[in-house]
């Protein structure tokens, strides 16, 4: 990220992802590994927002299904992100149904109160947000905003794809993502986290 803003989050690797998926569909295992490495971090982040600590388990179920249904997928790299996010979401909702709990908007937030703070170590020159803190922030949003933000920002879907994953109109998802980010921004302001944060992040990466 040292070169400045990417044209659209996740987009620069879409071509590579699409090529890897196509080869994987032909049986190339190494290509599937490439696809996995590109997609998994975003999926895992999305799942953490939905199910919290059980994200790894749900991710396993998700990838089993992806591996099994790979032959059915049609599309490019961006489409693969959307398709896998949809599978992840279904598995997450199944998981939550089995546990008979609601999506964990409150659970992560509670954990967050015990965290030392937004910075993982005091001597970090780059004041980045710790993963747990960032997730806690997102989890504190209303569910529709959290999902919209996660899909757009973490998974890297565009508007229409995010709308399809969520089964909502693109306008509604756009609004939800916008509101979610605004709310997060104001929370960060309130906690004084953004000293030099955004301005140094781009340079140091």
């Amino acid at each position, binding site marked *: 990220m040292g070169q400045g803003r990417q044209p659209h989050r996740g987009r620069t690797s879409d071509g590579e992802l699409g090529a890897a998926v196509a080869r994987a569909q032909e049986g190339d*295992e190494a290509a599937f590994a490439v696809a996995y*490495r590109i997609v998994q971090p975003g999926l895992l982040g999305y799942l953490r*927002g939905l199910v919290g600590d059980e994200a790894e388990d749900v991710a396993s179920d998700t990838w089993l299904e992806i591996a099994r249904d790979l032959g059915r997928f049609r599309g*490019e790299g961006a489409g693969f992100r959307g398709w896998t996010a949809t599978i992840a979401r279904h598995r997450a909702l199944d998981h939550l149904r089995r546990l008979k709990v609601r999506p964990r908007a409150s659970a992560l937030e509670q954990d967050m109160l015990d965290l030392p703070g937004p910075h993982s170590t005091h001597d970090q020159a780059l004041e980045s947000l710790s993963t747990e803190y960032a997730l806690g922030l997102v989890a504190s949003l209303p569910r529709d905003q959290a999902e919209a933000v996660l899909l757009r920002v973490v998974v890297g879907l565009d508007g229409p794809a995010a709308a399809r994953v969520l089964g909502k109109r693109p306008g509604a998802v756009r609004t939800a993502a916008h509101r979610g980010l605004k709310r997060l*921004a104001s929370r960060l302001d309130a906690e004084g986290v*953004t000293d030099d*944060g955004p301005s140094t992040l781009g340079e140091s990466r």
Partner: protein
Amino acid sequence: MPERHDSDGPPTPPAANPSDLAELLAAAVRGGAVDADAERRVLAAFRAARDEGAHRAAARNRRRDDWRPERVRRGGRPVRTTLVALVASLALGGVAVAAIGSGSGGTRDAGAERGGPLPASSASTGPPVTAPNQSAPAQADRGFSRPPSARDTEAHCRAYDSVKKHGKKRGQVLDSTTWQRLIQAAGGAENVGAYCAEQLAEKKEKKKEKGNAGKSKPGKSPKAPKVSKTPGGGATKNPKSTKSPESKAE
């Protein structure tokens, strides 16, 4: 973002820019390295699926797996399906309005009317299903006066649905005649899934209309029980058997 180290008082942090925040958040939430064990298991699953032949291209026929760019723009619906839904909802709207006005004397007429516009709307998807259409007046004479085409199709679609949902073999659930009827109505085997989704959605719509229209609907009570799941067998259902007395009084 302007830095304020040189301000007079304690430095105020610059307002968090939501789009910068997005980058920050993305990096933070995605977190660290990929788990090597997890990756090994995933690759093993891939090999297992591949070696079982699960990845053969012949398996491709579910709309939910179609993420080609033109499909995503339309929210996953092909244009044709959207048009069918539009035409069908217009036709049903017209039928419902007409049926409200027909009253108790309109048993036969309304039955024929219902038989009428529905094949007209399915004509836009393919050749109309002619057999149920012909039996509509005969049904009405016997006082059954329900649109056999809609009921049959609905039953067929439910059977088809059970194939998809419960993974049964299609041959067990749908005989070939039924399957052919579905293909005809939907205008092609590949459209059956979408066609059935529309049909079942329309049925919900119709139920609402019936509920609104009340007793003027011929031969049916608003709480019509679901059609039996026997494929192609809906035509002989006796409305008297399970429904409330009011259903025949009109």
